[in-house]
């Protein structure tokens, strides 16, 4: 059942094991409407594994994921109509043009008045002049903007952004951050945002989750969390968390 007042994303005690490796080990968190939650951690911490499970392309070993009140395991297709994503490691097909990509993905999300929506997104992400260009020939920054345009096609309730401003110049990155912040505030949607850029996390996220070795070690407001843990900045806190000993205290 859809719950307008409840969390847009609810992740409860989710685990993912690949043989003996526990990539994600009992992670629980939620994303509320109008909230941007940062998911940060060192390489191999389990961020992308967590996002892949929320995207329905990786089945959890245990636990429960609900998007907008819909159980992902039970109603995968319906739950995924409420979400969308942009990730640097998932470029859109390079053999289709910018416009063709948006049209194909717009149909996959059954977007109403698709042509109108595409025009709006092309303008918003400064892609009008590239509409007939094959996605594969765009610069990495332009490809990222295309991925973001695709991610906005269906006006998702939950936006999953895996390093969304990587490869984008500082000026465009600032515009994109502002645009997503406004969208989240105005549209009552929520976003889960991973980044290695702590300045960005502090600027954009309402709450941050520090993930290390598949577990959430810290959670809180990115502006106050460093001081609470005796760190000068979010960057310093990141370094300290990244060097935390493995579970159980073994060196």
């Amino acid at each position, binding site marked *: 059942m859809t719950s307008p007042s409840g969390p847009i994303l609810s992740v409860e005690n989710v685990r993912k094991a690949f043989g003996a490796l526990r990539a994600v080990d009992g992670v629980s968190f939620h994303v509320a409407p109008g909230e941007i939650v940062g998911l940060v951690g060192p390489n191999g911490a389990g961020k992308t594994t967590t996002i892949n499970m929320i995207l329905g392309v*990786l089945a959890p070993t245990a636990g429960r994921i609900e998007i907008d009140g819909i159980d992902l395991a039970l109603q995968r297709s319906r739950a*995924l109509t409420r979400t969308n994503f942009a990730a640097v490691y998932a470029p859109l097909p390079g053999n289709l043009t910018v416009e063709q990509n948006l*049209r194909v993905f717009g149909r996959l999300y059954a977007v109403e008045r698709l042509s109108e929506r595409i025009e709006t997104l092309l303008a918003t992400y400064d892609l009008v002049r590239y509409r007939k260009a094959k996605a594969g020939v765009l610069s990495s920054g332009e490809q990222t903007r295309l991925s973001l345009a695709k991610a906005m096609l269906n006006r998702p309730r939950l936006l999953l952004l895996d390093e969304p401003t990587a490869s984008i110049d500082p000026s465009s990155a600032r515009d994109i951050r502002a645009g997503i912040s406004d969208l989240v505030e105005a549209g009552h949607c929520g976003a889960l945002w991973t980044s290695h850029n702590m300045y960005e996390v502090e600027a954009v996220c309402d709450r941050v989750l520090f993930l290390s070795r598949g577990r959430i070690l810290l959670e809180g407001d990115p502006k106050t969390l460093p001081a609470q843990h005796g760190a000068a900045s979010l960057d310093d806190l990141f370094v300290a968390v990244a060097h935390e000993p493995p579970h159980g205290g073994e060196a």
Partner: protein
Amino acid sequence: MNPSRVAAIVLRQLYLFRGSPQRVLPIFAWVAVDILLWGFITRYLNQVGRPGFDFVPALLGAVLLWDFLTRVMQGVTMAFFEDVWSRNFLNFFATPLRTSEYLAGLVLTGVMSSVLGLLVMLVLAWAVFGLSFAGYGLALAPFLMVLFLTGIALGITGAGIVLRLGPASEWLIWPIPTLVSPFVGVFYPVTILPAWMQLISSALPPTYVFEGLRAVVAGRPPPWDRLALGLALAVGFVTLACLFFTGVYRYAIRTGLIARYSAETVS
């Protein structure tokens, strides 16, 4: 099943065809070469063979029908390979797209390309070698339907194999029709095969099509009961192929194969 999502898969393929003559050309070129090659072989055989037996419908008709099956299979697998080559599984399967909708999209693109190929073959066989299927009319439909369904089953099975084993296993897929052809009696009656091969033949739907074709060429009525058996087998094959693909897809979701699909990461 959501028609918009099925249409998205078809639309993607149409865009690729529109922007790429090298994708369109093989639909016509190879079937044309096959028809010309076998057309001239049959013409030669008619000259040196015993009078009264016409090789054109027996051999050229068989080649045409077998090529149709092959093109249907390749139409399905080629549409699937576009996602393999562009590493697009994560983008597609992170949408509301269901496997049934994805497969339906692949099949529809297979229909489009194979029907185009079939039209080229029919026109060439008629214009150059005088082989016309027009006289058979609707009686040809069950023959084509059995081959069509078998081609779909082979295409979906091939897609499942590549999804499970990785892009490097592509070379396993292309020879599948060649591997099947000795068993289904494209050019000869299956009665000349050893008993163990005949056993396999009886389980393969195209066997009943080529058996029927030879009956028609010999002036006998089409064996409808045998064609019905072939049709039932073909429906069974499509069902099994869909179950196989769905099983592989579930495995890929469980292991994370979909998210990190590449030649390097798939064993």
